């Protein structure tokens, strides 16, 4: 009798384990099916092409046979390539630094205003970020026009010499960076403004009592409190700026004499116009190391932030 009961109990327990197991499996199966479209899109349209471009970079121009590092050796021997490396780094680093500085300063000015008026100013200041970059760059192209430049018209009236904005390599580099700063700094402004809102007002009051001036308040309170956001925003922007295409393509198309090409525009010129897909792929792969480094730090910061919360 006792044996039978014990056996029944065991059976029941086993059965329950099976149903629990089945339940868990069912839940995870449903979850997996729900994530399947995402997995498909990411695998087919992002991961596969990214890996495929590594394979492409090792082929010759007609994509008939394997040349190993041939494309890279060819690139290393070309002056244009080193120019592009230099310009890409100069462009990305300078633009991110200026965007961060402008965004930081503007965020503080907006934060100083009474709460009621802030919305209006924030709304106006974010407009450059909302306009599609291809369209706003056209406006800049027209502002920099060689014969009708509206800036040069102002300069002429102020007695300042005319500037060949996009004709001179140095000014062209300046213009590309300027337009990028114009497009990108509103994003920094919004991020820093959000971070500023989370700095407790008591800290500023305490500092004011201790006799700190505005610069000390910013440097010793705001910067440390906002450090995580400052880093994440700068790294995000570094990735986007480093991979920038629209602005350079429309404003200078790499010219004058390839002086303003960045990796993305040069890869496009080689692959689509020059019909040398493997060479273009090798050029675009040079973006990967910087992206990987930036991604590593972003992920670390985001994780750390997650732990704090």
């Amino acid at each position, binding site marked *: 009798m006792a044996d039978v009961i014990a056996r029944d109990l065991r059976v029941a327990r086993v059965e329950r384990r099976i149903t629990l197991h089945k339940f868990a499996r069912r*839940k*995870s*199966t449903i979850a997996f099916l*729900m*994530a399947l479209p995402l997995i498909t899109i*990411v695998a087919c*349209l*992002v*991961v596969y*092409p*990214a890996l495929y*471009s590594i394979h*492409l970079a090792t082929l010759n121009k007609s*994509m008939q046979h394997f040349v190993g590092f041939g494309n890279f050796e060819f690139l290393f021997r070309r002056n244009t390539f080193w120019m592009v490396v230099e310009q890409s780094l100069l462009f990305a680093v300078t633009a991110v630094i200026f965007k961060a500085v402008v965004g930081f300063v503007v965020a503080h*000015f*907006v934060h100083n*205003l009474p709460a009621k008026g802030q919305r209006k100013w*924030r*709304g*106006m*200041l*974010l*407009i*450059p970020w*909302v*306009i*599609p*970059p*291809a369209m*706003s760059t*056209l*406006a*800049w192209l027209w*502002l920099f*026009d060689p014969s*009708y430049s*509206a800036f040069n*018209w102002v300069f002429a009236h102020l007695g300042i010499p005319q500037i060949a904005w996009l004709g001179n390599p140095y000014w062209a580099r300046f213009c590309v960076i300027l337009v990028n700063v*114009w497009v990108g700094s509103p*994003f920094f402004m*919004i*991020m820093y403004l959000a971070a500023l809102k989370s700095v407790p007002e008591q800290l500023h009051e305490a500092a004011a009592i201790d006799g700190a001036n505005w610069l000390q308040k910013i440097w010793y309170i705001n910067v440390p409190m906002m450090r995580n956001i400052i880093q994440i925003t700068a790294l995000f922007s570094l*990735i986007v700026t480093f*991979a920038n*295409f629209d602005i350079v393509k*429309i404003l200078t198309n790499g010219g004058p004499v390839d002086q303003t090409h960045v990796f993305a525009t040069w890869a496009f010129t080689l*692959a*689509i116009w020059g019909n040398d*897909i493997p060479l*273009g*792929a090798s050029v*675009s792969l040079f*973006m990967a190391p910087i*992206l990987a480094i*930036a991604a590593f730090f*972003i*992920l670390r910061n*985001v*994780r750390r*932030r997650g732990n704090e919360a």
Partner: protein
Amino acid sequence: MTMTTATATATSGKVRVARYGSISRGRRKTLFWSYVFLILFVIFFLTPPVYMLITSLKTSAEISAATNPWWVYHPTLSNYIELLTQNQYLTFFRNSAIVSVCVVSLTMVVSVLAAFALARMRFWGSATLATGVFLTYLIPDTLLFIPLFKTFAFIHDKTGIELINHWWVLIILYPTLTVPFCTWIMIGYFASIPKELDEAALIDGAGYMQMLTRIFIPVAIPGIIAATIFCFTVSWANFLYPLAFTTSADQLVLPVGIVTTLIRGDVYNWGQIMTGALLGAAPPLIIYAFLMDYYISGLTAGATKG
């Protein structure tokens, strides 16, 4: 102990009273300089769009007459009328609109489902997948277009399906940019919904789909709006994919259409280019004007939720 705190508050109170006047004067000064500098920054930020508007109201004759470029002497809407009665520009607009709407709906369905699964229903490898989604968001389109271009040519060779030079191919391409980011911010929004809500739903006998449609989607509506706006802006503004994948005039979308067809050789018809660009920038600007708060919360959610 109580003594010291009492004196501390007393002294700090005294200090505050003593410096009260100077603080308020300081505030007024800060406010004044903030306005001065903000006006300068607003001028810098708004010069290009305002200049677009000024130029769009001019005739070609006035533009080439080298008068004051910052003023319109004979305002006219002829550029707008010309563009809006021209079939070509309307085709670009239609292509852009269809592509954006399709991409937005596709992305939102895919990313809301996936974000729900990743945020609430754990499965093997779900944590890794969530990180992976974030990492794929960081891979730019400038790295992907060459292998995708080659893959599409390869598909054409093998199956005869022509994928290059059709506007609808952009519906396949844009999700590479929108899906990872939207999934990422939706995971953030879903994770912030209290667990008690779904436990209550489970006890009441709701299935997972019901839990998603009855609880998660209604609660996360602000997040969904923010993600939708992001998605729309990205697919409206992308320039690289259409430039690489479409060439014939009737297959172009707005950004590329304006750049390639309104600039004929070295002839720049600036009045029309600026009008086209301004009209092309209008949909995102209108959405932004009405839904600014959602727009901003979408911007900040990407990096602050995690």
